[in-house]
């Protein structure tokens, strides 16, 4: 059975070019980049090049790029650094829809004397900057807001938010894990202090991430050890991962236009196709301000895990915000923050595409989904009741 992969916000395929760029560092070029000899030094040279490739995608300077192990490490490093360098300040501002890497860290910090403000979003997942303005206090150490939401794709106005924070002398961090490579980012045009990237969301492998730290930003390392990354992140470099991420950033820059034309049109076709063929379905999240690859659709009266498993039978991969998929009993915190009714949230499916998806795949999913939803609705005790109410009206 062919796999139709539409779960690219979870992780992506490693691009062939990326794998090729990595292989030598698993085989021939195993030297330690910190070594004095040429054998190790050449690995250091590749890391240097990769740093430039990443910087180029972000419009940053190479020395502003610190390689980490993942997006979560980058997020943790950023928040903890802001708190360490401003020990007198005890207030953190985030949003209610942040990734667990931020939310869980902050709820942990809230037990250690820090005060956390979680900004609300509206029914479309949009952040009101007035609320941000009001939340900032002289005690605020850092504001951390995600650039693009992993579940809905909704884009936050982080560049404006960063200016607001800066006007009050507050550090601004953004989790750009989902937006990097999908929408243009140019650090020359904003005042964001720190930004997190995860390699495996843009066709590099798992286990490599980046924390961008704007030049001049005070930084306190999270991993303390050797002199690697100019003392900002101890630990021998993941040379193969770094080489891969460098290549992936180069490809992302090249594919940026395709992402916003080809991928966007596939996503739109999928969305239109499903909404028009399946009644009682709707999109979660703002349609305009959205990453080009993501759509989050709720199918009412059926449950997400059951939908995913039937899709799985056909080789279609996606995600759900349903409670059952996570093991918790409540549906996704993002959908709840948007006030999506539980009845809708339980049946939410996130499709996230990439440049590797084809029109045939989209057509296949559009063709197969109606029967899946119909089959589960046929088993649902709520469905016939609703149908009857509808006909009665």
């Amino acid at each position, binding site marked *: 059975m062919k796999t139709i992969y539409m779960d690219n916000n979870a992780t992506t395929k490693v691009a062939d070019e990326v794998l090729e760029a990595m292989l030598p560092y698993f085989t021939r070029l195993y030297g330690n980049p910190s070594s004095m000899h040429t054998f190790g030094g050449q690995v250091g040279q590749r890391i240097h090049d990769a740093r430039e490739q990443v910087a180029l995608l972000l419009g940053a300077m190479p020395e502003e790029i610190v390689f980490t192990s993942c997006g979560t490490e980058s997020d943790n490093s950023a928040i903890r650094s802001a708190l360490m360098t401003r020990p007198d300040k005890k207030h953190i501002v985030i949003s209610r829809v942040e990734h667990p890497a931020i939310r869980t860290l902050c709820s942990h910090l809230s037990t250690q004397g820090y005060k956390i403000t979680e900004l609300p979003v509206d029914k479309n997942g949009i952040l009101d900057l007035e609320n941000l303005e009001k939340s900032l206090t002289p005690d605020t150490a850092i504001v951390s807001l995600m650039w693009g939401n992993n579940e809905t794709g909704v884009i936050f106005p982080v560049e404006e938010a960063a200016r607001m924070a800066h006007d009050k002398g507050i550090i601004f961090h953004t989790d750009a894990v989902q937006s990097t490579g999908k929408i243009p980012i140019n650090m020359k045009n904003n005042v964001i202090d720190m930004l997190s990237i995860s390699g495996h969301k843009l066709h590099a492998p798992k286990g490599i991430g980046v924390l961008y730290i704007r030049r001049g930003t005070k930084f306190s390392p999270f991993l303390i050890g050797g002199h690697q990354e100019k003392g900002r992140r101890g630990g021998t470099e993941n040379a193969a991962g770094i080489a891969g991420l460098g290549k992936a950033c180069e490809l992302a820059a090249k594919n940026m236009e395709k992402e916003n034309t080809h991928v966007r049109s596939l996503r739109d076709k999928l969305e239109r196709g499903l909404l028009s063929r399946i009644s009682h379905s709707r999109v979660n999240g703002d349609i305009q301000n959205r990453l080009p690859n993501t759509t989050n659709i709720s199918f009412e009266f059926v449950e997400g895990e*059951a939908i995913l498993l039937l899709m799985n*039978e056909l080789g279609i991969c996606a995600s759900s915000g349903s409670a*059952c998929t996570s093991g918790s*009993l409540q*549906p996704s915190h993002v959908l709840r923050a948007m006030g999506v009714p539980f009845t809708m949230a339980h049946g939410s499916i996130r499709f996230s595409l990439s440049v590797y998806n084809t029109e045939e795949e989209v057509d296949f999913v559009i063709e197969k989904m109606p029967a899946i939803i119909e089959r589960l609705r046929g088993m649902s005790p709520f469905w016939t009741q609703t149908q009857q109410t509808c006909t009665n009206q």
Partner: protein
Amino acid sequence: MWEYTDKVKEHFLNPRNVGEIENPDGVAEVGSLACGDALKLTFKLDENKRIKDAKFKTFGCASAIASSSALTEMIKGMTVDEALKVSNQDIAQYLGGLPDEKMHCSVMGQQALEKAVENYRGAPALEAGAKIICECFGVTDKEIERAIRENNLSTVEDVTNYTKAGGGCGNCQDAIAQILERVKAETTTIARPKLTNLQKIRLIEETIEREIRPSLKQDGGDIAVIDIIGNRVIVATRGACATCNASGITLKNFVEHRLKELVSQDIIVEEASK
């Protein structure tokens, strides 16, 4: 990804007995859309009062659908009394096991069955004396107690996995912890050996602290334990009690009575000489 057994997958992909029986002998609906799973069960009896047919409609995840399917297969041919003996463990076992976090799916099946039988017998929907503990998921104290006893649960998390109670807003987690303690105490009281002196002293102190002092304080009085000699509890009255002519009656009728009830029948309460 959940680790479902082949049997769970098979019952999810090819569920048996989906639908609703017209003019059923018993019918029940449990769960709700908001909960994330719900089940409507209907059954019909034959002339020998055995379940001839059972059908379900379920909104929920794979294990909820598989549990419903399994339940309807299991109870066919049973009398209602036999069916009532089917526990959530039996349903899970029939499916070759369920992940811990999904045990509530089997509990939902067992609850639906119980309610459908009640419906058949014309009994009230809510078990006599049952009280809703978890508002989010509508779980009663009786249901929680039953799940604790039948599955030998020991933590609030276990209870949530099995009944969903406490998995929403979390406000009832303290109440669940109390039920857990109560059920555990029941099982230990039966087997409890005679109290040691130290245990008795502690229990007396705890009982006075929890059951007696709050009531006395409401009337402006108070009490302090001066000494415990064998079964004699020597106390001093304080506040309003110290000047009250009826304090002797309070000590005998209230303090001693409570201690006899909660600690030991042999307790005698005496007032310390002033």
